[in-house]
């Protein structure tokens, strides 16, 4: 029954991560994002992480949560997400009814960082509940219970937002956007990307990593030729991981960076050609 209810509520991926003292998640800074985030946190301003898929937004937040010793509650937003899914609802329990907090409410109470991943995926009427949390009021109205809770002083709201082709029709309202401090992410510099790919994939040969990264970065230029999504840092990590697992570099690039990204034969051929140019003789 619990499972069924959970499924009905559509909260499949809200995860509360307690900070752990030991292993910080690996994150390679790309610029001043840590400084910006810390400043925003000091002032308890809500933050919007903006950037293409697979460029390290999620990882960054995991890292920051650890660095600031805050628990992190992640909600992967989707179309059927309702405001009750965020805030909470009454449940039947025997003869009685119990109120169960939603992930947002829990974060507000516990002083956690609440991360609404891909917020544009959710319908706007579900996300209006965050408005009072994003300005000076810092409170969350629980309409059904007829009360309003004040946010814990350490609570912080973070949303991510990938301004892309897939979300053209779901752009955030300008009035919503303006409530956030935006930190813009992009694929990192070449040297940093090499370091990320090497560390994440565990591929020892750094010259080879550099070539894979160079090929991937070159292939990003194909975005202007009909490629919808460029090869992300994640895709490069995958490619290098495949090599580390014993796949030949060309095949690894094909399976991680080319075939998943396009069905266009000529684009795929061009990407492979780029990979070949960079990787031949390795």
């Amino acid at each position, binding site marked *: 029954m619990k499972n069924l*209810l959970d499924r*009905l*509520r559509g909260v499949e991926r809200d995860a509360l991560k307690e900070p752990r003292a030991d292993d910080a998640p690996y994150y390679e800074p790309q610029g001043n994002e840590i400084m910006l985030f810390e400043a925003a946190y000091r002032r308890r301003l809500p933050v919007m992480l903006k950037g*293409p898929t697979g460029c390290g937004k999620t990882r960054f937040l995991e890292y920051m949560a650890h660095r600031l010793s805050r628990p992190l509650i992640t909600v992967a937003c989707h179309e059927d997400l309702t405001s*009750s899914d965020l805030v909470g*609802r*009454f*449940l*039947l329990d025997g*003869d*009685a*009814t119990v*109120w169960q907090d939603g992930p947002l409410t829990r974060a507000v109470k516990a002083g956690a960082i609440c991360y609404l991943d891909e917020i544009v995926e959710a319908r706007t009427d579900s996300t209006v509940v965050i408005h009072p949390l994003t300005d000076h009021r810092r409170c969350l109205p629980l309409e*059904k219970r007829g009360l309003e809770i004040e946010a814990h002083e350490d609570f912080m709201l973070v949303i991510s937002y*990938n*301004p*892309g*082709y*897939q*979300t*053209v*029709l*779901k*752009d955030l309202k*300008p009035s919503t956007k303006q409530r956030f401090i935006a930190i813009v992410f992009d694929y990192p510099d070449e040297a940093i990307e090499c370091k990320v790919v090497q560390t994440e994939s565990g591929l020892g040969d750094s010259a080879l990593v550099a*070539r894979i990264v*160079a090929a991937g970065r*070159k*292939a990003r*230029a*194909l*975005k*202007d*030729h*009909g490629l*919808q999504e460029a090869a992300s840092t994640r895709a490069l990590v995958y490619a290098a991981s495949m090599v580390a697992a014993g796949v030949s570099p060309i095949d690894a690039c094909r399976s991680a960076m080319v075939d998943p990204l396009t069905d*266009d034969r*000529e*684009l795929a*051929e*061009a990407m492979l*050609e*780029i990979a*070949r*140019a*960079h*990787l*031949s*003789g390795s």
Partner: protein
Amino acid sequence: MDSAEVEFAIAQRLAVLAQLSFVAHRDVVATLPAIRSFGADSAIKWLATAEALFSHDREAGKAFIRGSKEAARAFRGVEPWCAHAQCFTAWRGSGSAVQAFMDALPAAAAVGPAVDSWARIGLDWCARHLDSGRAYFETPVGTLLGAGDVNDLRQLLAPAIELCSERGLALGYYLPGALRVRMLAGTASVGPWARQGGDIMKSGRNRGELFFALASEESRAALLEHLPGFQPLAHERLLQILLAVWFGQSFDLKQSDWMPGSGRPFIETDGRSLFLPAVLSSREEALVAVWHAAGHLAFGTFEQKAIKELFQAAGLMHPPLDPDQAISWRPLFLPYGEDQARFEVLFDLCEDLRVDALIHRCIPGYLQQLQTFSDGSVAANAVPYRRFVRHAWHGLADPGVRDQRLAPLWAPEARPIDAFLVARVLYASGEFPVLAANECSDAYPPAHGPNAARPIYPRGFRETGPARAANPDVGAEKRDGQSEASRRPPKETQGSDPDLEIPPEDTAGAGGRIGVGLPQPARLTGRRRTRTFLASGRAYPEWDYRERRFRARWAYVQERALDERDPGEAARLVAMHRQTLRRLKRAIEAQKPRRLAPRKRQLDGEDLDLAATVDFVALRRAGLAPRPEIYCQRLPRRRDLAVLLLADLSTSIMERLPDGARIVDRIRAALLLFAESLEEIGDPYAIAGFASKYRDQVSYYPIKEFDETLDARARAVIGGLSGRLATRMGAAIRHALARFDQASTSRRLLLLLSDGRPADYDDGGDPRYLEEDTRVAIKECTDRGVHPFCITLDPRGGDYLKRIFGDGHYLVIGRLSDLPAELPRIYLRLRAA
């Protein structure tokens, strides 16, 4: 037979012949001793054949007798040719055929046992058509058999049998062409080539005969199509994509007039376009050759300044321009007199090395790839040149083995003049042998070739290459090296809108020549205008980025109807894309939820909404009075997305692409498929076009409004679409925005279909001006809750599109032919997201 009997038999034959003809008798008597030397039986047989042929046809007999001495000598007897010759008695007037047969015999003897088949095939042809048989025998045996065997020959002739019987094509018309096709492209290519010729034959005998003689363009094209090897232009999009990736610019690729048999195929350039031969030996070599040739354009081989320097170094005046504004490098080599070729090749090779070194920096693996190509067999005199280049490549990769004389070439800032000076040193060194005219082409390494095979149009200083789809009509304006802007408004005279009748004298002084010369500041005050300003229609503000303010009531938009209609074209296009349309409909079907997406939390409905019910009960128990919204309704969701497709109808869409299609044809098809798809989907939609000529004449052409149905008229208008004038995007967007007031949906999408950047006659040649205004217009869209999205055909649009529309709000269609299918598909994707 004893000898007496033999003598008697011979005498008898001779007597008969003497009676038949004096000449025949005389010739036979003269030839007989040579035949008799192979035995009396042979002589008798031969005499019988001669007599039979002669009495059948005097010419045939004479030809036989005259050719016999040589034939007998070659075959050491009269077999089998006497028997073959006998067969000619079956056909009347076979004299010239016999002549050809006899003439061919001495050479035929050399092919051994195959000779019988060779003769039989020819005789079969005689039976079909005597003249064809003659043509067969007139063709040297060696040529007929080529490198292959008799089966090869049969295969070569197989298509001709049908052509002869069905189309009456004589073998004489077929053979020479077919033999060349076989030589150049292989036996397997003959069949398809001939089949194509047969089809052409149906449409006209003359055209067909020219085809088979390989004398027509279509025939040569058919041959090229069947050549073995890599056909670079069949992969043009791949080349273009990779060129853009490697060099960050696009190049104009054309087919050269190279034909097989005319020497090594090289890529040539005139400083503007790359001319690729129809076929190159392998894919790898072709790619590298294209990179190399593009490298020359990208790295300044043909830059105006560089050419000037060269001529100065050679003590010459500025290079003379020919009437077409092109130059030749010839004068640079003239001082070397007889030895020109040697210096020219050395200069080419040095310049190639300079360029290779630079390409090596931007294409990893380029040099390694180059070194993997084998030299093949080359003239002995060319070998030192090849060795020199290989050594230089080697040195490029490994500084330890560098030839110090080449050091100036390796500097990143090296110029053609450096190559010229190095070539002088090499020339003087005496290491390089004199090259005969036919040895020069051997001196170039794989994927390289002469750099100045054609007259060169010097390239402007900051030129980034011609636009992908250069408008042939504005080509003249592009020669000044200012072709960097991907699109410029057309000249005054063309594409004039029937609706925009402005007397030419009124427009002449109005800054319309912005395609020429350096960008000037936009003339926005209108002070120097001589044409009358027409303040009609709706006025819109325009953003001036230099003054950081709006110019109030600046652009005027008039709504006009499109008068050209072509219902036939519309029907043809829909029929042509039937398949695509069917596939689209399936995709649309799949996007519709199988079971209608239920509307949840309704007061009334077919099913209980379980989640809502639980909430409801829980709230009741908690003492609240929730609304009983506990049902699901299986009604289709309200249509909540409206789309307006705004198509750029400027002149540039009239361009014809290398494959013969015009952009406008694809746009018509795309709009039709889009409309048909939207009918299927059921979303409210509108379609409109726009064009402009000065700020006061922006035309907005409604094609289908939100509240109209897609009727025959709308289809016919789309079928008759044509391009005109320029692209003042911002004003058109602002005007389109008001259309959404008709649509009562929560989500609104403005789809812009374009093929280039915004430009107009009076933008003063400053591309930023209208670009900035468009960017602001797009922002106005978002502010009003309309989502803008741009679909463009401009492969070089990345930069300005990003600035105008923002990341992820545009898409470049890489292949024009994809547009019709892609446009509805993109909408489906946007909508489903």
